[in-house]
């Protein structure tokens, strides 16, 4: 969607995601957003870079930590916030909430709260595209924790066996809730494990949006060309807790600080400034624009109606027309 040579667009997107997530945290504390809320602060380069490498007809399957993906896919902030406020104008009509953002038009297939649960689904979307001879690719995003699930393994084998046009994008933020990579996986080189299915698999600096975009573009091209699936291990870190419930007792302060030094927004902004593509006030301006967009979106979402209780049992099966 983003021009491959437009790092400023990547930065803009990352800033929007960051501000969005921080606003959500506040809205959650204020009780406006409820249920579980998982933020992707620190991981913006993955969202921005992966999604920038896709075309509008490609498909996206995500997780419960998907606000960044949804924004990067172009879903308006209002639709996302209205969803989290449970409003009828939400991108899932308010039925889904934070973990279940959908947009059929944009081929954004959720928002899945079962770890690894979206991976078989994504494999099927790719199967349908191949079956119908459509030149689309599916990007399937999931975390490092998902790599321990059987559904991951079964799906990778199936996708590789059938040479499906899919790119598996593992957001390796080194923790599954409170369980670190080394306490979840006997072999922590996740790309190596995916490689054992005979697919191209490599690790990427997930704190570098440009690198993520380039790697994803290569993987997408490979998949689109019919050479089978690819696996990207996008090495990143979440700066905040797992969810708003999490007291984050399991990570060292020092580790968090070290990763914060690699903040993907700071890094890209610095590069752009060095390259003369961003001036001194440039980042602040992007933030201000994002905040203004957010203010308007929050106001619109707050003003939006709830679904009537009489409609409670709608959207379960197709309604007779």
């Amino acid at each position: 969607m983003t021009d491959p040579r437009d790092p400023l667009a990547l930065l803009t997107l990352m800033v929007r995601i960051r501000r969005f997530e921080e606003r959500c945290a506040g809205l959650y504390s204020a009780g406006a957003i409820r249920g579980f809320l998982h933020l992707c602060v620190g991981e913006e380069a993955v969202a921005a870079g992966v999604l920038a490498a896709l075309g509008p007809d490609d498909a996206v399957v995500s997780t419960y930590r998907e606000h960044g993906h949804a924004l990067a896919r172009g879903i308006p902030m209002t639709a996302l916030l209205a969803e989290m406020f449970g409003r009828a104008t939400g991108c899932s009509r308010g039925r889904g909430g934070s973990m279940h953002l959908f947009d059929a038009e944009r081929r954004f297939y959720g928002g899945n709260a079962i770890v690894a649960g979206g991976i078989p689904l994504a494999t099927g979307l790719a199967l349908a595209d191949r079956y119908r001879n459509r030149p689309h690719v599916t990007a399937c995003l999931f975390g490092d924790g998902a790599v321990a699930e059987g559904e991951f393994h079964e799906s990778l084998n199936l996708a590789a066996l059938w040479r499906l046009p899919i790119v598996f994008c593992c957001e390796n933020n080194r923790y599954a809730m409170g369980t670190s990579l080394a306490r979840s996986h006997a072999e922590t080189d996740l790309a190596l494990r995916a490689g054992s299915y005979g697919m191209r698999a490599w690790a990427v600096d997930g704190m570098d949006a440009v690198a993520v975009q380039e790697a994803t573009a290569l993987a997408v091209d490979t998949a689109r060309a019919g050479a089978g699936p690819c696996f990207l291990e996008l090495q990143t870190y979440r700066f905040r807790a797992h969810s708003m419930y999490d007291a984050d007792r399991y990570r060292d302060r020092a580790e968090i600080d070290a990763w914060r030094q690699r903040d993907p927004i700071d890094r890209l902004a610095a590069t752009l400034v060095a390259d003369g593509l961003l001036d001194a006030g440039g980042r602040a301006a992007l933030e201000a624009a994002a905040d203004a967009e957010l203010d308007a979106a929050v106001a619109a979402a707050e003003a939006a109606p709830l679904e009537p209780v009489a409609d409670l049992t709608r959207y379960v099966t197709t309604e007779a027309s």
Partner: protein
Amino acid sequence: MTITAGGPTTRTTTFREAFREGLREALAADDRVFLIGEDVGRYGGCFGVSQGLLDEFGPDRVQDTPLSESAFVGAGIGAALGGTRPIVEIMTVNFALLALDQIVNTAATLRHMSGGQLGVPLVIRIPTGPGRQLAAQHSHTLEGWFAHVPGLRVVTPATVTDARGMLATALADPDPVLVFEQIALYGASGELPVAGGAVDLDRAAVRRPGRDVTVVGYGGSLAPALEAADLLAAGGVSAEVVDLRTLRPLDSATVLESVTRTHRLVVVDNAWRSGGPMAEVVARVAEEALDELDAAVERMGAAEVPLPYPRHLEEAALPSADRIAAAARRTLA
């Protein structure tokens, strides 16, 4: 074959052939339809149902999968979202337990979670049921579990006509449909209308009208229920036999209507008695037609035991025509 003046109107066929004809017709009618599952292709299906279809339609339309129930059922869900009409076979219902996450957490919820944007027009065929001495890991009757889940449709063909016709109707449904095929019936025969085609999936069917007692069955319990009705008729009792056909949404109206006439109810399935699908049928009657009942309800199901291997014990664990007839007589005592 039944011959009438205008030529034969029915022909004799097995359930296996009837299911296969349904598959063949579906594959021929719509190129969005394909069949995937373990050994559905080269092997011809564990129970021979899809024999020959690979040769006829080729490997894109009839695709063997690895042993990965969760992945290939989930892939069916995704492929349905992607505009195709997959038919997924899970070789036996016990293995469906490995795919329940995808069926319950994803297929059944996507339409709702997306606020109506997405639909999953997927058909899952699941051979099921006891009766072949396959013991405690291959003989479960779990369609009642699926019938509990909003977002799914659950159908249970018990006649060759339904075996032949339900698939087309299921494929026309924009939501996930699970077709439970009785393993023990594959080899059994019945009369199929020559002009067979899609059948409705919305209504239960009165398979045998009667006055004195209503016997409700479906899938694997229809045949013993009908046999019981014969036994009862010999003794002067007129039993009405209702075949539920579809467990979700359940057509309780047909059952209630029958009970309103007979005032006596026997329900029969092959599931473990406690918490089986017939509990729901009884509960609906107790809610909606309690006053119509002139006798305590009789409920028959499998004994509360993982099915044992030896024939004498498996038989003893399952409802039989004799025991159904006896239960019906108790309601009349």
